[in-house]
């Protein structure tokens, strides 16, 4: 195609305009603005320039506070890739040897012999792992569980968790269910925005995408659930990272605690 007269002039003009806008934006963004802002905030020109490029933390316009606080964690569990990979593995063919100690309270197949103890069958492996780990480290305390867990080696925890997670949940006695299913559906499915309580299902429901260590609650023992909610509310139990459960449980009434425990105990 023949270039009409003025075509190359147009290209040069357009290219220069684009270049000028780009260079102007860079001049102001990387030099003038950060250096002047930095001077007002007592930051030297070089640091301000680097910060405007994203080299080193902080903004060119203000200094960052120093921090010397000592760590005070409520749980030592960290969900690293290695831990998650161990928990995602297949269940061992034979129950781990350590599972025998668990059976005396939690049942051979993870169904507790006494409703005061939690069922482990079908529980999330991450949840079991975290609680065992917390009993070992002392983040959660229990007269029986603490010495039990401390008797285990760190590498025993994941296989145990995976073993019980792979057991089928107990069957539900539907005849007993009807009079137990008390009306708390609003808290379970909608939450209460006025009190800042999310729906229980927002974390405990299937496919919720909530915190990794969230346990499943359905068909858990009613007495155990109510007891744990009360312990969270009082602060007696405090191994929930960032107090997620302590905060919400403290906002519940005693009546709601009873209803929620009954709801989950008798729900699929």
């Amino acid at each position, binding site marked *: 195609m023949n270039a009409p007269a003025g075509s190359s002039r147009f290209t040069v003009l357009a290219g220069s305009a684009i270049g000028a806008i*780009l260079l102007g934006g860079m001049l*102001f963004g990387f030099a003038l603005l950060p250096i002047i802002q930095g001077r007002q905030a007592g930051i030297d020109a070089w640091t301000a320039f680097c910060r405007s490029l994203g080299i080193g933390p902080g903004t060119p316009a203000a200094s960052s506070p120093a921090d010397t606080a000592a760590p005070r964690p409520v749980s030592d569990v960290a969900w690293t*890739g290695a831990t998650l990979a161990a928990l995602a593995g297949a269940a061992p063919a034979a129950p781990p040897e350590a599972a025998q100690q668990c059976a005396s309270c939690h049942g051979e197949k993870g169904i507790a012999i006494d409703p005061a103890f939690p069922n482990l069958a079908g529980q999330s492996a991450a949840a079991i792992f975290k609680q065992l780990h917390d009993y070992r480290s002392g983040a959660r305390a229990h007269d029986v569980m603490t010495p039990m867990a401390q008797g285990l080696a760190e590498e025993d925890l994941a296989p145990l968790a995976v073993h019980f997670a792979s057991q089928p949940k107990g069957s539900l006695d539907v005849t007993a269910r009807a009079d137990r299913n008390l009306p708390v559906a609003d808290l379970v499915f909608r939450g209460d*925005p006025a009190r800042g309580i999310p729906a229980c299902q927002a974390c405990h429901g299937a*496919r919720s995408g909530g915190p990794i260590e969230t346990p499943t609650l359905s068909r858990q023992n009613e007495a155990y659930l109510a007891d744990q909610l009360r312990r969270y509310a009082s602060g007696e139990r405090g191994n929930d990272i960032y107090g997620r459960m302590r905060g919400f449980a403290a906002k519940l009434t005693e009546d709601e605690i009873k209803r929620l425990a009954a709801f989950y105990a008798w729900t699929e």
Partner: protein
Amino acid sequence: MIASRRLVLAHLWTAFIAFAAACVLGAWQMWVRSPLRPPLATPENYFLSVTAHGSAMAYVLTTFFIMGFGYYVAETALGRPLPRPRIAWAAFWIAMLGTLLALGTVLSGRATVLYTFYPPMTGSAVYYVGLVLVVVGSWVWVGLMVEAMRRWKKAEPGRPVPLAMFATVANAIMWAWTTVGVAAELLFQVIPAALGLVQSVDVGLSRTLFSWTLHAIVYFWLFPAYIAFYTMAPAAAGGRLYSDTMGRLTFVLFLLYSLPVGMHHLFMDPEHSTGFKFLQMVLTAFVAVPTLLTVFTITASMEIAGRLAGGRGLFGWIGALPWHRPMVLATGLSFVMLFFGGGGGLVNMAYGMNAMVHNTSWVTAHFHLIFGGTVVIMYFAIAYAIWPSLTGREAGSFTRQRLQLWLWFIGMMVTTLPWHWLGLLGQWRRVALFDYTNPTIAPWAPWVIVSFVGGLILLVSALLFVANLAGRHVPALRALPPRYAQSHHEASHVPTALNGFGFWNAAVAVLMLAAYGWPIAQFFVEPSPGAIVHRVDR
């Protein structure tokens, strides 16, 4: 009737069915947010609905409409049959398969991550793969558009490419650039996480890659509206296009300045420095240029039409325009919405003021008004204009079409003006349930109800639109494509740079390197600790 009518109709019907279904969800979502409390209003259902609404509107309506309209323009503006129609059909079925996979997964509750993904939250891989297939289908379309233009240029050496096709190819090339960001995010970060191959995601990087796509994708959606402004509205009004060159300049400026600006979506993010945010803000300011050029050129074109129709005086020509024609009416209504939406956009773009409105209803209002209003009303007008040449039938009268356009305009204003106001009051985004007993929130209640009413008006309009297209029509006397507007002066000697894309592609590459080079490289130079994947599909 045109040769590729079945191909075009398949695309447009897919787009409009997804659109109508998404309108039902949108109206229901406003009901949930209001104090009126509809049935089934749980967060689980609400966010599933938001994901479906966003995915259907942003990925299905737009991509299929633009592909279908592109094929239409390629045949009618160039006056030549479409190259490789079989490949075009294959692309349609790939995109259709992707749509069914993605929307099916959303409806099964396994991908409630909203249409902007939000890793480390991760849904089923099927959802993301489905969206990738939609994009793959659109990539084939990009290739076909470029090839159609190349063949035409070869056959007609020295002649400027017709403006409608030039713009369509500009959009295709821009789309190819645009999809690189989101494709990289999906293929290298999100899908590996969804398949369980990696346990953590660098969220800073994923947000940066998505921002690459996030502004330009809106301009991808916007292009058909601008093509209609430049090439269809002046002809429908009975006038001429004031300046063909301005049209070309507008379209290359969209190509240029819609890409290196995406970081204005990340102004409030901690993972980028002030310098790059400032630079991209400066470049963002220049997206106002093509819009302002368009407002001027189209107004001038309309003035020519109005004066030809006998309009006198400073404003007399406005009344003399043929407002009974849907294309003219839609253009007028679209400009009103562009005025409000563009004004709101200026606030978003200024990073000082952005802190006031970021992630409030102001932003929701802005993109509903610009995309749902300004752009989608032109989709309607385009569909009405080209329908006779696709089906061989035409509407007996324009009354129901005009009613539908007015309802859409009124519905959009009634929905989004309260949202702007609520955003300024601090109403934040993506919320299923508000506590209307809170003293800060209580005064919002009437405004939320007003916008719910707006949502219902929009729903009525959407259903009327589908009925208008599907309803029984009289056989068309002349099932010819609508005439494209003649330029006021015959475009005989456009500068070479405005008859092709080589120079502009080079310019985009330079700008992208300057604007995104280091901001992306920094994640590899100093990798951030990843965030653990949170699965929502099991």
